[in-house]
């Protein structure tokens, strides 16, 4: 195609059926470079194309148009154009050129960040992810960008909706690192600490050849969230963590490991001193807010420990043991823990005593049955998935080649399996 007009005509002609569109894809690929060279004059031609019927052609033009740096005055216009395209494009057409779609969306993210209005891109990127994904279990390259925009624009609830999808397939492993790290920040903001721990765990136990900065930061947050949520931290790495992580990660996170061991002593004043003397370093890592939460969680842990020893205790004794200022403050702490379901107790104001009770859940109600039911179903689904993955891996030639090399002798059964699958 010589001229841009010819390209436009081709797009308009060949956007009918799916075969036409595939043919168009081939033609457009050949003229990619010449389109890029003419990128500055492309914008009036975009008006001649319809983003929903001519999605593929529009995508090529838009990608070429945005490949050169945009001046600030035009950024607004380009953002509006990209958002309109994302909302109206046809998923089937853009699946023929997914890399281009991803580039266009990533540029959108850069532009809204540059314009300092990250909230502008949130809805569009979510639409883009849904159109790009073949199913909700697939992690695309746009996931980390979307979650980043949610964090920057404080649209945490919207981000959480996406995080609740279980991921089973990943395009690029590096997407997982950023997605899980930013995702954990959203969960921490919404106090969903259990989910944050899972996401952070995925980051530092992921396979890697070299230690990366994201894993280091994730491990630091993991230590802090573990202390807040569970009141303890175990420094043992799971078996599937890569060896480079196991050897080197602790060297970069020594301060946090020291905080964890200080925490396990149970003395709140010592912990506060330690935190104050290292305030600058925590601030530098942007973790001071989390560290403060760790300190305040210590009173809770200490009170919970008391329930294991005492049946009744006076409010004044609680205040003394846990190093709180007064019996009234102890009463408020206990009341808050009862409200959050972290403790079972009743307060007797007349005598100034607290009576610790057992959890009265008897696991007999319909609600509990539903809960157990749905957990069992999810585990069964997961189990089926694992069996399917295991089956397909056993047939994978790369895997078999590696396993074959490591075996020194073949057993009768192995030879049979090898014959079946290759």
């Amino acid at each position, binding site marked *: 195609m010589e001229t841009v007009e010819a390209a436009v005509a081709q797009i308009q002609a060949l956007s009918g059926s799916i075969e036409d569109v595939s043919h168009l894809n081939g033609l457009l690929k050949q003229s990619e470079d010449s389109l890029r060279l003419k990128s500055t004059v492309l914008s009036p031609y975009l008006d001649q194309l319809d983003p929903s019927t001519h999605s593929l052609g529009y995508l090529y033009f838009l990608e070429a148009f945005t490949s050169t740096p945009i001046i600030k005055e035009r950024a*607004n216009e380009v*953002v*509006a154009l990209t*958002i309109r395209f994302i909302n109206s494009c046809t998923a089937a057409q853009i699946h023929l050129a997914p890399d281009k779609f991803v580039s266009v969306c990533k540029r959108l993210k850069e532009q809204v960040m540059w314009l300092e*209005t990250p*909230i*502008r*891109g*949130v*809805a*569009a990127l979510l639409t883009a992810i849904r159109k790009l994904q073949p199913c909700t279990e697939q992690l695309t390259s746009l996931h980390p960008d979307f979650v980043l925009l949610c964090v920057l*624009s*404080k*649209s*945490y*609830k*919207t981000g959480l909706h996406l995080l609740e999808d279980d991921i089973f397939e990943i395009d690029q492993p590096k997407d997982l690192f950023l997605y899980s790290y930013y995702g954990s920040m959203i969960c921490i*903001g*919404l*106090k969903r600490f259990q989910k944050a721990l899972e996401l952070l765990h995925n980051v530092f136990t992921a396979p890697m050849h070299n230690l990366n900065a994201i894993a280091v930061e994730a491990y630091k947050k993991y230590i802090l969230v573990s202390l807040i949520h569970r009141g303890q931290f175990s420094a043992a790495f799971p078996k599937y963590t890569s060896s480079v992580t196991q050897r080197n990660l602790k060297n970069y996170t020594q301060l946090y490991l020291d905080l964890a061991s200080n925490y396990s002593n149970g003395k709140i004043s010592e912990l506060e001193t330690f935190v104050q003397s290292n305030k600058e370093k925590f601030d530098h890592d942007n973790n001071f807010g989390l560290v403060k939460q760790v300190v305040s969680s210590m009173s809770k842990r200490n009170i919970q420990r008391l329930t294991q020893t005492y049946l009744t205790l006076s409010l004044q004794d609680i205040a003394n043991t846990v190093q709180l200022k007064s019996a009234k403050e102890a009463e*408020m702490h*206990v*009341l*808050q823990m*009862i*409200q959050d379901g972290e403790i079972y*107790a*009743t*307060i*007797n*104001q*007349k*005598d100034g005593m607290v*009576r610790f009770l057992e959890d*009265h859940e008897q696991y*007999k*109600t*319909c*609600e509990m*049955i539903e809960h157990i*039911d749905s957990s*069992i*179903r999810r585990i*069964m689904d997961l*189990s089926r998935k694992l069996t399917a993955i295991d089956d397909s891996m056993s047939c994978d030639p790369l895997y078999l080649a590696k396993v074959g090399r490591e075996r020194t002798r073949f057993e009768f059964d192995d030879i049979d399996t090898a014959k079946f699958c290759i």
Partner: protein
Amino acid sequence: MDFTPLTEAMASKSYDNVADICDNLMLQVAAEGTAFQHEWPYAIHLLGHIYVDDINSARFLWKSIPAEVKEGKPEVAAAWSIGQKLWTRNYAGVHEAVRGFNWSLETQGLVAAFSDKYTRKMFQLVLAAYSTISVQDAALFLGMGEEDVTKYTLQEGWLLDSASGMLTVKKQPILSEQKVDPSKLQWLTEYVFHLEH
């Protein structure tokens, strides 16, 4: 800006949905790129989050509101002060914050509904957490005067010891559904099948 879904929700008193509707509308309006912050109903948006006890989202929303709006619209600041009291667990302060402002027509219904919900929740909390409580504290938690709270709790079967000013809480037995329906038998069969394979 098309606020129909929001006005409909407010008119039908489905306050549970207000926060989600506001969140979605905000993302759509933001995508258009025009500055919407000055016309946005932040007070209703904040109260929507507060109504469903999502104080985290209310906090983040407050952080994202521009300073001029915070200063120029006292209702927005008043809505946030309720959220703030909830965040710091200042149980009595919540009632004060609700009563301490002259709410506009649009927000009155939502605030009143929240206030009822909160009082009932606080009653449940006191019921669960205390075996005896002073009349003073009960009045603070439930946002009522001392006489009103005495009358209310005596109706619920609590006992008053006038000498010490202490109320003895009467625990209500928790009734819960325990009937199981026959479809569970189908689930059980599936589990056993799965375990054996």
